[in-house]
């Protein structure tokens, strides 16, 4: 859970600012089954003291609504800019969370977001926490599938840094 909290806080802050909307955490569940993509999704990989990937996902209509608001112009869900907007929102939410975790002593490298086209994502395993977070905004719902695990060799270093 200590890994998840910064993502909750960051999503809350970034979505509220970017979408000019109230944000509520609707649901937080351990993903026992493989994650199913809801619409337009971006994937960001992390490597370092903690490794894994995060999928940032919104239904097509919601994603178009987000992108239109951010761009200040009406965009269709088929517009490439909508995919770009989802990637950029993912980048901001995850980047801000990683900032907090780095300042706590963990060291990561964040890779550029890519469009997640697969229908399914990873589920929880023995060493990987896969959690699905659902945020409700006035412009629609956002889902984050966070699958992270500690990189065991780096744990002592991270703990010493805190």
């Amino acid at each position: 859970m200590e890994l998840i909290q910064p993502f909750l806080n960051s999503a809350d802050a970034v979505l509220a600012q970017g979408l000019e909307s109230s944000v509520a955490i609707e649901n937080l569940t351990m993903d026992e089954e493989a994650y199913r993509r809801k619409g337009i999704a971006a994937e960001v990989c992390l490597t370092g003291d903690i490794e894994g990937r995060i999928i940032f996902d919104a239904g097509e209509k919601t994603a178009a609504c987000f992108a239109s608001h951010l761009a200040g112009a009406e965009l269709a869900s088929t517009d490439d800019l909508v995919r770009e907007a989802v990637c950029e929102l993912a980048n901001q939410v995850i980047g801000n969370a990683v900032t907090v975790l780095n300042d706590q002593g963990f060291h990561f490298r964040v890779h550029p977001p890519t469009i997640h086209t697969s229908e399914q994502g990873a589920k929880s395993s023995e060493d990987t926490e896969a959690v699905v977070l659902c945020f409700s905004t006035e412009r629609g719902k956002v889902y984050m599938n966070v699958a992270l695990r500690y990189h065991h060799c780096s744990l002592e270093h991270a703990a010493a840094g805190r």
Partner: protein
Amino acid sequence: MEQFAPVKRSGDNQPVRYLIVDDSVFARKNLAKMVESFGGQVVGEAGDGVTAITEYDRLTPDIVLMDITMPQMEGIEAAEKIVGQHPGARIVMVSSVGYQENIVAALQRGARHFVQKPVKPEVLYEIIKYVMRDDQATPQTAGAGAGA
């Protein structure tokens, strides 16, 4: 979008010329809209650090807005190379990843400032004015600055 008093170059009173570097087209468009609201002119865009270097050589902009996490070459390395070739280059790092170590590394390698995404226009405006101070740039219209 909020209107700001134009920041112009003191020497010739022309708009400040920007190079925007970000692998996200969406982020580049948003930053372009922001700097245009400051009275600036976007003279070029790049999606990675390697292109940023060649575009800087070609365009010699007044300010570079540079992302950090990008494919091919990351922003901090590109900033270091640009400043190595052009010591007067004004580079402002714009990234969602703003931990202390990253900020220090960017500043040590020649960046003038750092702003964390999501970017607030009024914050970027103040940074632009600060970074352009050695050009003695001043707002052209009194009383219409950030937050006006």
